[in-house]
C-alpha cells in the first residue's frame, strides 16, 4: 500500500496492521490533546497545582524528558566531534528520540504557563539572570539544531531522496553536521545545566540551593553531566524496545556495548560527584542555613530517605557499575536492567529537584505540602509518550533510521509486528 515510501530492502508490517496500531496510540494522544485544550480554554485551575506547587508534574516531565533526551546531544558529540564512528549506527535514532523529547518539552511548557499567548515574552522581555530564560533560549535553539540534525534523515526517505535538491541538501548537511553537533553540544551544555540551575539557584529553598561556580550552582554541572550520562541509557532502552516490538535486531551489539560502556563511566563519575555534592550540601550548605538533613525528609510521608537512597545508590551507582564491568555489560539482561534503573534514577532525580523542593517547608512554622496531579495533568503528560510512539513508528517505517538494519536482517524474512 505504502510500499513506495518504505526504505528499500526493509521489511515492514502490512499497512492496516500499522494503521491499527497508530489509531490505538492516536486515541491516547487525542485524550491528551483534549486535556490540553481544556487547560488552554479554562486555565490552569484544571490542574491540581496550587500556590505551594507552582511547579509540579509538568515541570518534572519537562526536566525528565530533556534529561533522557540528552542522549541526542551526547551521542552527537561523540559521533561528530570525538569521531567515534561506530555510533553512526545509532545516531539517527538518538536524534529522533531527542527530537521527540524536546518537542514534547516545548509543548508541555506551552501548556504549563498561565498565559500562553504571552509566552513569547520570555524571549522578547528576557531577564538574563533567570535560569528559565536560559532554558527557553537554549531549548528553542537546541530544538532547531535537532530539527536540522533530523532533516537529512527525513530526506533520505526513498521518495524524498529522489528529488535532487533534497538529495544534495541531505548530503551537504551531513557534510557539516559536525558544526551543528558542536553548536548543539554547546547549547545543550547550557540548557541542561540551566535546568539544573532552575532549582539550584533558589536560595530561598535550602533543599534545592547549591553553591557553585560563578553564577552557576553545582546542580548546573550535575544536570548536564547526568543528562549526558543517562541520556544514552534511554536511547538504548528505546532501541531495545523497538527491537523487541519489531522483532528485529537493529543495532549491533558492539555499538550498544560501546555506548553503554561510555554511559556507564559517565554515570559512575556523575554518581561520585553527586555523592560528594550531597554530602557537602547535607553537612555544609544546609546546616549553614540552619537546616539538618533530617528536616528535608519525613518519616511517614512520601519523601522519606528511601528516595535519596533509591536515586543515588539503586538507580545510580548500580547501573553505573553494571555498565562499566564488561561481564555484566555484555549480559543482555543485566544491561537492560541497568538501562531501566538508569532511566528511573534520572527521572527520580528530576522529581526530587522539582517536587520535593516544593514539598519541604522552609519557614519554621510551615508544613509539608503534598500534591497529586489531576487527570488533565496526567493526560497531557502521557500525550508526549503517545506522540513519541507514533513518531518513532512512522520514522522507523518510512526512514532508513538504522543503517545496520538491512545487514542484520538481510536473510531472515521474519514476521514483524508494527
Amino acid at each position, binding site marked *: 500500500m505504502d510500499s513506495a515510501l518504505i526504505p528499500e530492502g526493509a521489511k515492514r508490517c502490512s499497512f492496516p496492521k500499522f494503521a491499527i496500531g497508530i489509531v490505538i496510540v492516536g486515541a491516547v494522544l487525542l485524550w491528551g490533546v483534549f486535556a490540553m485544550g481544556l487547560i488552554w480554554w479554562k486555565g490552569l485551575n484544571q490542574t491540581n497545582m496550587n500556590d505551594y506547587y507552582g511547579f509540579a508534574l509538568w515541570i518534572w516531565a519537562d526536566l525528565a524528558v530533556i534529561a533522557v533526551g540528552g542522549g541526542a546531544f551526547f551521542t552527537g558529540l561523540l559521533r561528530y566531534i570525538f569521531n567515534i564512528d561506530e555510533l553512526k549506527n545509532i545516531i539517527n535514532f538518538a536524534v529522533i528520540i531527542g527530537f521527540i523529547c524536546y518537542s514534547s518539552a516545548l509543548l508541555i511548557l506551552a501548556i504549563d504557563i498561565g*498565559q500562553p*499567548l*504571552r509566552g*513569547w*515574552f520570555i524571549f522578547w522581555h528576557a531577564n538574563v539572570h533567570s535560569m528559565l530564560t536560559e532554558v527557553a533560549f537554549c531549548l528553542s535553539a537546541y530544538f532547531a539544531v535537532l530539527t536540522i540534525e533530523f532533516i537529512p534523515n527525513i530526506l533520505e526517505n526513498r521518495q524524498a531522496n529522489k528529488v535532487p535538491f533534497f538529495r544534495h541538501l541531505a548530503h551537504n548537511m551531513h557534510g557539516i553536521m559536525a558544526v551543528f553537533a558542536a553548536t548543539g553540544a554547546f547549547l545543550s551544555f547550557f540548557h541542561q545545566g540551566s535546568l539544573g540551575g532552575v532549582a539550584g539557584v533558589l536560595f530561598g529553598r535550602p533543599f534545592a540551593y547549591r553553591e557553585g561556580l560563578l553564577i552557576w550552582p553545582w546542580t548546573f554541572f550535575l544536570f548536564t553531566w547526568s543528562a549526558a550520562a543517562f541520556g544514552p541509557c534511554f536511547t538504548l532502552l528505546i532501541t531495545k524496545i523497538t527491537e523487541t516490538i519489531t522483532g528485529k535486531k537493529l543495532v549491533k551489539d558492539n555499538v550498544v556495548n560501546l555506548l553503554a560502556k561510555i554511559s556507564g563511566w559517565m554515570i559512575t563519575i556523575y554518581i561520585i560527584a553527586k555523592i560528594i555534592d550531597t554530602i557537602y550540601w547535607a553537612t555544609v550548605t544546609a546546616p549553614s542555613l540552619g537546616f539538618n538533613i533530617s528536616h528535608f525528609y519525613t518519616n511517614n510521608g512520601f519523601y522519606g530517605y528511601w528516595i535519596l537512597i533509591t536515586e543515588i545508590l539503586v538507580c545510580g551507582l548500580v547501573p553505573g557499575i553494571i555498565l562499566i564491568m564488561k561481564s555484566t555489560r555484555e549480559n543482555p539482561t543485566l544491561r537492560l536492567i541497568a538501562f531501566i534503573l538508569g532511566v528511573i534514577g534520572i527521572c527520580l532525580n528530576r522529581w526530587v529537584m522539582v517536587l520535593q523542593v516544593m514539598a519541604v517547608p522552609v519557614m519554621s512554622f510551615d508544613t509539608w505540602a503534598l500534591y497529586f496531579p489531576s487527570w488533565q495533568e496526567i493526560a497531557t503528560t502521557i500525550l508526549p509518550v503517545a506522540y513519541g510512539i507514533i513518531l518513532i513508528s512512522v520514522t522507523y517505517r518510512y526512514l532508513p533510521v538504522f543503517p545496520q538494519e538491512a545487514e542484520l536482517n538481510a536473510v531472515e524474512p521474519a514476521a514483524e509486528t508494527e
Partner: protein
Amino acid sequence: MKVDRRSFLGLGLGAVAGIAVSPVGLKLTDDSSIWTQNWPWTPVPADGEVIYESSVCSLCPGSCGISVRKIENRPVKIEGRENYPVNNGGACLHGIAGLQYLYDPARVKTPLKKNGDKFEEISWDDAIALVAGKLADLRKSGSPEKFAAILDKEQGSVSGLFKRLFKTFGSPNFYTMPSFESYLEATAAAIHGEGKTIGFDLENADFVLSFGAGIIEGWGSPVNCFQANASRKERRAKLYQIEPNLSNTAANADKWVPIKPGTQADLALGICAVILKNNLFDSNATMNFKGGFNKFAAMLQKDYTPSKTAEITGVKAADIEKIAGLFAKAKKPVAVFGKGRGDGAQSLKELAAVHTLNCLVGNINKKGGVFVKSKNKYLEFPDESMDSIADAGFAKPKAGRYMNQLVEKINSSSKSVVEALFVYNANPCYSLHDTKSVKQALGKIPFIVSFSSFLDETAKEADIILPSHTFIERIEDVPSGAGLAKTVVGLTKPVASPVFNTKNPGDTVILIAKALKGSIAQSFEWESYNECLEGVTARIWDSLSEDGYAVISKGAPIEPAAVNLSFLSGNPPTVQAQGDFGLTLIPIDNMRLINAGAYVSPFAIKTVSDKVLKGKNIVVEINPLTAKGLKNGGFAIITTPIGTARVVVNFNEGLMPGVIGMVEGLGHTFENKYVSNKGVNVNDLIGPVIESGSGLDAAFGIKAKISKA
C-alpha cells in the same frame, strides 16, 4: 510553460515570505497578548475624583467612625476614621469589608410577600397597606398585645420609633436580642439599681482581670478594645485571662488561667473571699454597701474558701490567692465580665460576682476602673398620643421577660401568644440557642414582617419582607455602648445611593404608623425619618451633622454609685450545663466571624483559618488528651442532648481537657454561596438553660460526646 509543483511551491513560499515581511505577524502577536491583558471579562474600574466621606459603622455595637473613599461618587473602600472618639482611625475586618454587604447576593432587592413557600415581589405601597391592614385587624380584634417585635437593641431613634409604634399600638411585647449592652444594664440593675449601664476604662486600667471577656475577640466596642489592649505594652499594664480555652485574648494576655467551663462566677467569688479575708478591699467603698455586706462576707468565707473554689473551678488555690493579691494591690485594677463577645448567654450570678470585685476594690467611677453611668438619654421624642386600646394593651404584662422566655411561651402555650411579629436587625432563628425551637415558635406566629436587608434565616420565615437600606445607604443615629467608657453618639450617613428598592427602616415604620391612622398616625407626624431624626436628636443635632458625632460623656462620672449585694449574698445557684455526657461543648468567639446581627462577609470568611473551617466542614478543637480514638484532622460526630453534628477534629493543646470548642458564626443556611452552607451553627447544638432568679439564658455550653465518624 506548465504550472507544476514548483509553481505552487513558489506561490506558497512567496505568500509566506510576503506575510512574514509584512507587519501582520508582529502586530497580531503583540495584539493577541494585549488582548490577554485586557480580557473583556476582567473588570476595569472607572477612575475619577477621589473624595472621602465620614460615617459610622453599625454592623456591631462598637459603632466605629468610618471614612469611606469614593471615586466619582462610587464607594470603593471603608477605613477607620481618624480621631473618631471611639476607634481613632482603627477599623475591624467586618467594617472594612462593609461594601460587600451593599452588593451581597442575599440582599432583598425589593419588598417581598410570601406565597406558599416562595417569595413574590410586591410594591412598597401594597406591602405597607398589607401590613397595616393585618395590624389594624389585630387591633380591632381587641388583643393588640399579641403584636410583638424583635430588635437588636433598645438604643437609637429607629428602635425608638419601633417602641413608639408598639406603645401607641398597645403592645408591651417589644423584645431585643441578648446583647452585651443588655447584660451591662442587667448587671448594673442588680448591683447599682435600675436605669444605669456600665463602661470599662480599659485604656487606663493597669491590671485587667478578665473572666473570659474576649477583649480582642470582638468583645465590647472591638476596635476600642484592640487599641486599649495594644497600649498595654507601653503602659506596662497587665492582663490576666480566665477561661477554658486559649483564646487570642488569653494568648495575648500576660497570663492565661484555664478554668472549668461555667465556673467563672465561683472563681470571682473565691477571689472576693480572699480579698475580704486578707483585708485587701477598699473600706471606704465598702462602707456604703447595702444588701448585707456581712452576710455576703460570711457566705464567701463558708462556701468560697480557696480550696473549695479550687475544687470547683480547677484553678489552684495558690493561684487564686495570688490573683486576688495582684488584683487588689494594683493601682487601677478592673475586672471585666461577659464571656466571649459578651453577647452570648450569660449568667447574672457571674456578671454580678465579677462586678463585685470592682466594687470591693473601690474602682467604681474612677479612672482606669468601671464607670457606672445613666443610660444614654439623648433622644427626645414628643409625647405619644394614646387611645384607649393602646392604654389597655400597653398595660398588659409582657409575654416573657426575655427573648428565650417568649420563645418558650409560644411553644408551650396551646393558645396563640403572638399574632404578628416585627423583626428588625435580628436573626433569632440563627443566633438564639436551640434554633429548632425558635423556628418552631416563629412557625406558630401567623404574620411575620421582616425588615431585614438580607434574606437571612429569620427573614426566610417572614410573610412580608420590607427591606432596609444597609448602613452604607442610610442615615441613622448610632449610640455607643457595649462597655465603652465614653458615651458617643455617631451619625451613620448614606454614603452610597440605595442599590436596590429598599427604604430606611425609620421611614418604613413611619409609613406603617401613618397607614394605621388614628392616634397611632398622630404619634408619627414626621414627613420622613430624616425629619424625625433631626427633631428627636435636636439637642445634639448640630454636632451630629457637623462633626458626624457627639460626645455625651467622657471620663469618670462624678456621681457615686450605690452598691447593693443582696442578689449575691444569698449565693444563688450556679448554672449547670444541660445533659450528662462526659465532655462540655463550648462556643468559641472568633473575631473573623460574626455570630449575631449581621453575618460574615466574603472577605472576612476568606480570612478564617483552615483550622476553623475546611471546605464545608466545621473544625472543632479538642485537647489531644480528650481525643481518645480520634484522628487529628479526621471526621467525628458530636452529640449533645439537642442535636448532632459531623465535624472535623483539630487537636489543640490550648483547650482544657474535657472541653470541645466550636466556633460561633458558621452554618448559615441562605442563598449566599460565599458565606452560607459552611459548617455547623453551634446554636443548633446548644439549648437554653434559664438561670433561676434572673430569667437569663445562661447556657455557657452543653454536655456532649464525640466519636469517630
